[in-house]
């Protein structure tokens, strides 16, 4: 039973990272009906940018709490700019084009970012310093919970609660929901659709950047091509929850994280990918639009 609870804690940690990244996929999909394949690579880029900021500007002398806040904010801003740039160059010209054209454009953008990271930071694995965060670990009835895990869980919950409040209760959030339903009708209601799309990219990439930094802080080692793997898992999480659905992405992320950790604990991590996708396909066979996705009637 210890293994179970231990893997549950590990799974919730990685699951909340998946959920943060999945939110970027699902929000962009909701508003543009586009699978943003470059999102995972922006997440990877965030980890590298954060590490560089730490190495170059902050270093071990700065108070680690202050430096962490600075890293998260500045990395988030840089990655959000990259996200805006991505939307302007690769997606905006294709807004009226056939849907799959934008998918290919996204795949191209993914190659650009991934290889851009390699050109700037090199192909080898880089490591986050271990002394950024206290390495305290608590032992609760045989289950090890580290400080990093607790912070990731705690921060993710706050961020997601904030996002749900923002989307559901505020004026801008309402505009985002309206735009994802119908671009033209929203324009008629006085919503600036272009600004809303830019805003969604900013929020999505900012959350992704936080996810990327969590990956760096939790796993330490980061590689230029890790975006594909994390991106794919986050994307699967978004699909499981019902893509376009914000709470769905959160549920999907946590579910997937726990599932993956249980496989690692009970089966073997060499089967993690295969079993994850088997789970995904089984869910889609039973519920064709994901767990929380609404059924859309076909327009005639």
């Amino acid at each position, binding site marked *: 039973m210890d293994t179970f609870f231990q893997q549950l804690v590990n799974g919730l940690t990685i699951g909340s990272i998946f959920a943060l990244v999945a939110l970027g996929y699902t929000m962009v999909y909701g508003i543009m009906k586009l699978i943003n394949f470059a999102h995972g690579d922006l997440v990877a880029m965030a980890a590298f940018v954060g590490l560089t900021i730490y190495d170059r500007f902050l270093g071990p002398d700065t108070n680690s709490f202050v430096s962490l806040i600075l890293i998260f904010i500045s990395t988030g801003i840089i990655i959000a700019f990259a996200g805006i740039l991505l939307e302007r*160059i690769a997606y905006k010209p294709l807004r009226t*084009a056939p849907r*799959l054209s934008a998918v290919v454009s996204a795949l*191209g953008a*993914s190659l650009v970012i991934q290889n851009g990271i390699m050109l700037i930071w090199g192909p080898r694995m880089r490591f986050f310093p271990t002394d950024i965060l206290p390495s305290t670990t608590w032992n609760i009835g045989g289950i090890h919970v580290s400080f990093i895990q607790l912070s990731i869980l705690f921060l993710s919950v706050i961020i997601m609660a904030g996002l749900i409040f923002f989307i559901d209760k505020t004026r801008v959030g309402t505009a985002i929901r309206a735009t994802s339903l119908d671009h033209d009708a929203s324009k008629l209601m006085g919503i600036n659709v272009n600004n809303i799309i830019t805003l969604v990219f900013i929020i999505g990439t900012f959350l992704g950047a936080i996810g990327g930094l969590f990956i760096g802080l939790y796993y330490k080692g980061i590689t230029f091509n890790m975006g594909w793997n994390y991106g794919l898992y986050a994307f699967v999480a978004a699909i499981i929850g019902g893509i376009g659905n914000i709470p769905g992405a959160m549920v999907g992320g946590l579910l997937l994280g726990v599932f993956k950790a249980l496989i690692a604990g009970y089966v073997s991590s060499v089967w993690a990918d*295969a079993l994850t*996708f088997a789970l995904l396909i089984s869910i*889609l066979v039973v519920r064709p639009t994901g767990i929380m996705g609404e059924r859309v009637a076909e327009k005639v």
Partner: protein
Amino acid sequence: MKFTDKKSIGYIVFITALLIYPGFADSRWLAVGSTFLIFSVVGLSEDIILGKGGMFNMGHALFFGMGAYTAAILNKFFGMPILYTTPFAIIVPAIFAILLAGPIIHLRGDYLLVSTIGLNIVFIQLVQNDLFGITGGPNGIFGLDIPQVLGIDLGSPTAVYYTGVFVLFLTFLIMTNLDRSKPGRALHYFRLDDLAAKSIGINTSAYRLFAFALGAGIAGLGGVLFAIQYSAVSPEAFNFMQSVLFFSIVLVGGSSIPGILIGTFVMFVLPEIFRDFATWRYFIFGFAMILAMVLRPEGILPAKFGKIPAYMKKE
């Protein structure tokens, strides 16, 4: 048949160029040429599913790999001459296409896309972990027999190339006949309007599976050639990135035979030409993909009017 119009002249020039190419190419470029032919065949088979059938299949390397592995396993473990494995390498992926696509064929666009990605990843992991002890694990299977016909070796790079040309022409024939056949017309119809097609009694699910099976079978044929060319098969050659390549070939080129050929050229041969740029290669290539879609959102040579695939229509 007229041979004076632009289209026929284009084909004659293309066929002549294909036939005399080995006379000019050194060994590396001959291998690139053979792989170009194989990828064109697989690209055309993906077009049956993605372009003609309008189903978002991003796991096509699965069927390509299944064909290659069927040939390799039958040859290595059952001692069957590699050319004789061809029918099996066509039938096995086709049957699996029906079994695997059957439960997910009703999914809407993007959900189908991610499911097919999933199928591809499951396949690769099964092969890599060597579940049945016959796939050779991460290293794959190597040292396959050299194909022979009437005692003549067909293993030389030139012979492989001309076999590729033959298979490509065979695929052309299938594609043009498909457009004129009943299933081809059905595909064409339900891609344009699924509901209307259903309401006049076209069994759309059956034709969808037919398209999957046909595409998978042709991809399997391409897989045999690939196994022959390298006398080996390994998991990386059929992974998800390879599916992305076939997917992009159809979309960058456009859903037509010349479109697919251009798509294969752009997506596979151009990166080979720019190999000297080494690390910059895929950085620039990514930009080229974006540029291609921004400038030609419907592909470089899209299908003509009346053959507009579903993915070109906005929802």
